């Protein structure tokens, strides 16, 4: 496709079957076992949405328990069976099972697979100018390993002994000993098996993303001209590749302890009326291994969301992203530092306090690149010409959450303050804002922004606005009050607070949070309708609905396998030439050579144009 074509942005649909040698594939190979990165991305997205609804639904049930502890939950008996007693009470162990599943599902299945899986897959080839991923088959395997892992995790929820229940961090000995809780039996075994497949999926995906970004960039797409989305996905994949194998090791040793009588994590245990023979293991070893993945994991979750936000904010501010180099620098700094801060999750585990001091220093350093990112987003908005598409609103919401939740990290990263806040609702509030909600908003911003490319149709704007406002206000109403009860010392993972005088207060606040959670969750059904209805019935999308610069908008309305019908376009400039002084439009796509834009070129660019 030639360059001039793309500038006819308002042209709605034009038949794009003037490309040759396209052979029809059967349904199975086109939609199920597809090797096309676009189809695989959609598979990840829809599986992610499915999991998000399950994970969110679980949180609604346990929020009911927390907000209205006296409530008769008999109406849930048809769904939860014996986990609801005949008196209408939720089983305390199933409560723990639900929070465990909520955490596992949200962190791994929604915000890792659903977010990276969708957008890395979808955008990397389209934005670097490649026909597909480096290995389409590995990509296919990546999805199907994820699918298998999903099935196993889903099945585990229906065991009579319940799914894994020791918290998403599955600290042994609790998770190692079926005597300790029934969820540590078969449920935990399936959790571990599921995670091994999940990690295999992540690694297959990650290797592909890295290879594609390094090797398959189109002509002219230097690293300095890559959109920040690609930078974020690229570094995220590197993080995953380096940290997930450690989780395999960690999980494997746990499997040995559970099934083959080893003592990696177990020592001097007396449980269920008998002393176990295990000696010499250390539960702290598990925590070190787990958080060596676990901490990079939170950046694996948030970096792609920040990448998406960079793109969306820049496009809709009609302004270049402020500090492109600093943004890349901060991604790299965060990625590096994320590997050496893990033990800040362990200040009060009995770990040597000296180690605590070291990790406190390192942890607070990571706040600097994060702060730079936030400032740069705000400066990008400054003197822009802001267009509030739903994607833009979700991105602004993300920045707001990232700041709110990031700042509370300064409390928790400070070991002395963490003594009193560790494992309280303050922590819950902190990570749900900075990682959970922020990454979730990144995911939604991405869906609203790239839906027209994914499905060739537009989502409904008004429903998008309603969805945004209910979710945004809802999230703040849910998580902001939790800071207060966290400061008051309320421990997380409590089935009820009635046993303690110190926690007998704030009953109304807990009910309020539950109501807010209900509204927030309910608003997601608006999104579901908007999403699925418009896949089929939406208004047909223009080729470049947001007047964006990046390469994916130069493809046909519905790109076929191979993405561009003709030659892959060349890239001549960075992706953020918005509102460039002198230019006739407020955007100049990456495919426009400098010699066509004499009026807006800088001296350096005029030099460059001679080489073109």
């Amino acid at each position, binding site marked *: 496709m030639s360059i001039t074509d793309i500038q006819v942005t*308002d042209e709605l649909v034009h038949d794009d079957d003037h490309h040759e040698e396209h052979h029809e594939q059967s349904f199975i190979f086109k939609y199920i076992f597809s090797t096309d990165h676009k189809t695989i991305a959609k598979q990840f997205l829809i599986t992610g949405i499915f999991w998000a609804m399950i994970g969110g639904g679980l949180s609604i049930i346990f929020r009911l328990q927390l907000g209205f502890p006296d409530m008769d939950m008999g109406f849930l008996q048809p769904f939860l069976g014996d986990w609801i007693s005949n008196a209408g009470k939720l*089983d305390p*162990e199933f409560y*723990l099972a639900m929070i465990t599943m909520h955490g596992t599902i949200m962190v791994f299945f929604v915000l890792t697979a659903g977010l990276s899986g969708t957008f890395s897959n979808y955008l990397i080839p389209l934005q670097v100018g490649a026909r597909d991923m480096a290995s389409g088959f590995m990509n296919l395997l990546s999805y199907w390993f994820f699918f298998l892992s999903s099935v196993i995790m889903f099945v585990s929820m229906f065991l009579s002994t319940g799914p894994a229940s*020791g918290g998403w961090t599955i600290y042994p*000995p*609790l998770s190692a000993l079926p005597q*300790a*809780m029934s969820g540590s039996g078969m449920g935990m075994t399936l959790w571990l098996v599921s995670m091994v497949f999940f990690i295999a999926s992540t690694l297959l995906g990650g290797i592909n993303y890295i290879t594609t970004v390094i090797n398959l960039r189109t002509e002219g797409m230097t690293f300095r001209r890559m959109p920040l989305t690609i930078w974020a996905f690229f570094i995220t994949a590197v993080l995953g590749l380096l940290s997930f194998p450690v989780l395999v090791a960690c999980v494997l040793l746990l499997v040995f302890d559970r099934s083959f009588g080893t003592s990696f994590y177990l*020592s001097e*245990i*007396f*449980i269920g*009326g008998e002393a176990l023979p295990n000696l010499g293991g250390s*539960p702290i070893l598990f925590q070190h291994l787990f958080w060596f993945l676990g901490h990079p994991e939170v950046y694996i979750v948030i970096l792609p969301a920040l990448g998406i936000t960079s793109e969306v904010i820049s496009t809709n*501010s*009609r302004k*270049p992203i402020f*500090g492109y180099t600093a943004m890349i620098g901060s991604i790299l700094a965060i990625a590096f530092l994320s590997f050496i801060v893990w033990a800040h999750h362990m200040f009060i*585990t*009995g770990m040597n*306090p000296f180690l*605590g*001091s070291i990790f*406190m*220093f390192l942890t607070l350093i990571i*706040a*600097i690149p994060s702060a*730079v990112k*936030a400032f740069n987003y*705000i*400066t990008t908005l*400054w003197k822009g*010409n*802001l*267009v*509030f598409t739903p994607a833009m609103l979700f991105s*602004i919401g993300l920045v707001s959450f990232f700041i*709110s939740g990031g700042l509370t990290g300064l*409390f928790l990263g*400070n070991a*002395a303050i963490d*003594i*009193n806040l*560790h*494992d309280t609702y303050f922590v819950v509030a902190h990570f749900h804002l900075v990682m959970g909600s922020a990454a979730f908003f990144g995911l939604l911003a991405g869906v609203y922004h790239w839906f027209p490319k994914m499905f060739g149709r537009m989502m409904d*704007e008004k429903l998008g606005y309603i969805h945004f406002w209910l979710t945004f206000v809802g999230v703040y109403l849910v998580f902001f009050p939790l800071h*207060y009860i966290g400061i*008051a*010392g309320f*421990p997380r993972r409590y*089935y009820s607070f009635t*046993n*303690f*005088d110190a926690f007998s207060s*704030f009953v109304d606040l807990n009910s309020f949070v539950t109501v807010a959670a209900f509204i927030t969750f309910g608003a997601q059904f608006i999104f579901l309708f908007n999403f699925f209805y418009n896949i089929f019935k939406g208004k047909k999308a223009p080729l470049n609905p947001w*007047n964006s610069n990046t390469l994916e908008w130069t493809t046909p309305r519905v790109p076929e396998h191979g993405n561009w019908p003709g030659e892959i376009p060349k890239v001549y400039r960075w992706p*953020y030439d918005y509102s*460039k002084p002198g230019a006739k439009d*407020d955007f100049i796509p990456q495919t426009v050579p400098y010699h066509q834009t004499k009026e807006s070129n800088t001296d350096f660019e005029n030099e460059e144009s001679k080489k073109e």
Partner: protein
Amino acid sequence: MLDIIIIIVAILILVILFAIFRVSSLVDIIKGDSSTKIPSSNGFQANLLLLFLIVGLIGGIYYSFGGLEEDFVLPVASKHGVITDNLFWWTMAITGIVFIVTQIFLFGFSWKYQHRENQVAYFYPHNNKLEMIWTIIPAIVLAILVFTGWKAWVDITRESPEDSEIVEIMGYQYAWSVRYPGADNVLGEYDYLKIDATNQMGIDFSDRASFDDFIPREIHVPKGKPVRFNIRARDVIHSVYQPHFRLQMNAVPGMPTQFWFEPTKTTEEMRAETKNPDFQYELVCNKICGQGHFAMRYIIVVDELEDYNEWFKSQEPWLKQNADYLTEVPTKLREAASIVAGIENPLGLDVVNGLTISGSK
């Protein structure tokens, strides 16, 4: 019947919502505003963002400064707690200012620079000076926070003073057990293999120091004297947490941990301060440990020093309460054990067991 009506009403509502949605999208198509890419409600969204900022800030400030029915700041009752509270509130002040300023900029700019027909965005790709400023200033502020936090942390986690009262706390599913060293001020050894239904803590009676150890029903600690908790667990990880003392340390099976602090307010004083005549310091489990996790409550009583000493003296050694366990004491120490534990008629028992043992030799 009611169920069916609810379902029908729900379906009707959904149908109506769908109808409204269809009508409004048809109206949009008829209006034909697709020529412009600026959302028709762009300005309205900008106003909403501004409204959110204002309402959010007012609400946040109102609820943070007394708008809630209950006070979310627990009175502090330990020496180090005053220091960590101080750090907490300084951090709160700094982050609070940053929070308010950045949110004002974020939403304020969103409102101020909303799309206008003749407005052109300012092409402003970077400014190295500005970026240096907001790298260096946070770095300095963070350095100060880290340094003060680090000093407090080192101070709190250093070795407990020589004259500390020693209390051993053991977590298990789903309760706490507590042991005091008794008159000799030394805790006896323990061994997890010695745990049984009575000897819950696995006290090892081959160690002389264990003879006078006692296991009370609640923890007593003296005001104004350092107290050291020796913490362990016997099945899964638990966490010893007491919010008023700003005290928390995990209890890990196979790896003893410790935490020392100095209580500054007796239970009576806290009752007066909180105006709650039933106030008790409660020990809380704060690491997920199974289905009874939310109910591991144990009372801590802070006494004046004299009262504490009196209470301490009045406690009976565990061995006295469970004289059967004399059989676990090595024969030659048995007499000493009876004297230390104050067991009145150890002889009969001793003779019988002595015979058995010598008989088996």
